[in-house]
């Protein structure tokens, strides 16, 4: 096998600093994780999120669907507006005889699906566009970042409402609305990180010895950008559901769906008559989900960002 001189030098360049770096990164992650666990509030957040994931996974066991689409609330017209702790209905029933506990359990799947899809898609879009903007610079940078400015000027809720009004009320369209809007923050983070790394000596060196743009991008830029993107994602997991449930609360989701915002909206009908449970429980489910992620994000930021670190 023949190797060009540049291949050998680049191999040396890559192996040594990267191995040390990989080790450093592993140490860093370990330190971050341990520090996170020391914060009681963050620990609570992790437990909350883990519980939701478990509930979502075990939904068919916890609340067996009675045939048909499990994401449509099954109705029992014999048990309309039952208060909590009624026989068979721990959290009571809705105005139309749906089991609130069933709705919250199956709704957790929708919540996880919505936030996961939006967070992953916005991360990819943001990282790609922000990376291109920072790396290429010039007018490409200008065009991409001005687009981000324009997007950020429209509140995500307003945009999501507009998208759903245009494309029709469905969970998919709520996801489309949020995914097309929320990538701006990721793009800004990524672009800043790329510009920062671009001027570092070791990147210059890697380029000189013939590393491709892609390899520099993957080895140098992405690992550095991961911590702030991570923080942003944890916060988005909560925020996305807050916005999505607002859209469905307004009435822009298919009726009868076991989505938490839809349930709160249905509960509103009985509220003035004193039936508090219809809105209280599903709304609390949304709150807990967002709270769990927000305390994780808050703790993560404290650990990763020395500026806001408590001393």
């Amino acid at each position, binding site marked *: 096998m023949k190797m060009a001189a540049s291949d050998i030098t680049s191999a040396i360049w890559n192996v040594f600093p990267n191995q040390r770096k990989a080790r450093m990164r592993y140490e860093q992650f370990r330190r971050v994780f341990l520090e996170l666990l020391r914060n009681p509030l963050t620990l609570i957040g992790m437990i909350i999120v883990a519980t939701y994931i478990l509930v979502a996974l075990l939904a068919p066991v916890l609340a067996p669907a009675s045939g048909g689409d499990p994401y449509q609330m099954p109705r029992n017209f014999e048990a309309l507006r039952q208060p909590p702790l009624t026989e068979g209905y721990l959290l009571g029933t809705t105005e139309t005889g749906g089991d609130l506990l069933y709705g919250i359990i199956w709704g957790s799947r929708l919540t996880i699906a919505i936030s996961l899809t939006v967070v992953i898609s916005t991360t990819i879009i943001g990282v790609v566009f922000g990376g291109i903007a920072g790396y290429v610079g010039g007018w490409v940078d200008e065009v991409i970042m001005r687009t981000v400015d324009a997007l950020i*000027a429209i*509140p995500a809720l*307003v945009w999501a409402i507009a998208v759903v*009004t245009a*494309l029709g009320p469905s969970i998919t369209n709520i996801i489309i609305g949020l995914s097309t809007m929320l990538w701006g923050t990721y793009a800004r983070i990524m672009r800043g990180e790329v510009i920062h790394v671009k001027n570092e000596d070791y990147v210059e060196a890697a380029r000189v010895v013939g590393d491709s743009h892609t390899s520099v991008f993957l080895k140098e830029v992405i690992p550095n950008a991961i911590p702030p993107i991570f923080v942003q994602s944890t916060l988005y997991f909560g925020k996305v559901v807050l916005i999505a449930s607002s859209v469905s609360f307004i009435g*822009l989701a298919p009726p009868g769906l076991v989505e938490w915002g839809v349930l709160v909206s249905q509960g*509103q009908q009985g509220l*003035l008559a004193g039936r508090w449970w219809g809105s209280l429980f599903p709304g609390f489910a949304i*709150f807990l989900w967002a709270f769990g992620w927000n305390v994780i994000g808050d703790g993560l930021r404290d650990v990763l960002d020395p500026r806001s670190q408590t001393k």
Partner: protein
Amino acid sequence: MDVKDYTIRRLIIFVPTMLLISIVTFALTRIAGSPIAMYVSRLSSEEQIQQVRELYHLNDPVWVQYYYWLQGVLTGDLGWSSTAGQPVLDAIFVRAAASFELAIVGIIIAMAISLTLGTLAGRYSDTWIDHVSRGLAVGGMSTPQFWAALLLVFIGYVWLGMFPVGRAETVMWESIAHPTGFYTVDAILAGSFAAFRDAIWHLILPALVIGYAESAVITRHLRSEIVEKKQEEYVNAARSRGLREGTVFTKHIRRNALIPTMTVAGLSFIFLMRGIIVVELVFGWPGLGRWVANAATSGDFASVMGFIILIAFITLLLNLIVDTMYAYLDPRVELGE
């Protein structure tokens, strides 16, 4: 880049950004298909449909339609709001005062909460006070505003029977002139204490929901600014000059922490606009938010578009003002890249 160049650059960018927003918004309406269905019914004859097509330039290519639409927007014609039964611009004007009054009271409450909590948390960082403040702030960030609004309606209206929903007692308000449209201001101008009390009474609950939600970010920001400023050299210098700890805190730490916090507070006015949609809906508040929510559920896209254009315009303008002011106030700020 000096401050003047920066301001000019930002002003120049303003126009294409607004154009971009208008294009994106317009494109969204056309993805949904031809808007012809809004103007014709099954009973319309082929001839009538053709007339409508001609009238609204629907036979032309999309970019020509955009041109006509933009021309309308620039001359103040944002289309017809079927929800309000009046032109979109008129609908906005009629409802703006109610929304802004709610927003302003909301931000006053947000400031009161966040300045108190943020100062305490920063001053006593890493004590139980700090932890409670953090819990409250994160709670505010995590609470769905429509849910908080419903809870307050239940507690205040159903349970305690103390607080009303809606805007005001109609009988009392018909006897008062409405020169500004801001009910609290109108009541003061009319010299009616009963009316003023009524206006405040109706404002408290919705403003509380918005204010608490908005306070979270400002609280966290002020806290971290204070914690950071505590370590600064000049603070130690002030201490070593023998100033009392209280004086050092208010005059040297907090005052300097407040400047960057104010910019965050200025921008939070924008985020308020998103809370307003659901909160107005729950409280039956006759403002922009409830109108746009109703427009959305009844497919009245002209209203939704008008609202987006308005909000984006206000947001960009506020951003511009806040950034420029900040650049003037703090010479250390790096402008541009």
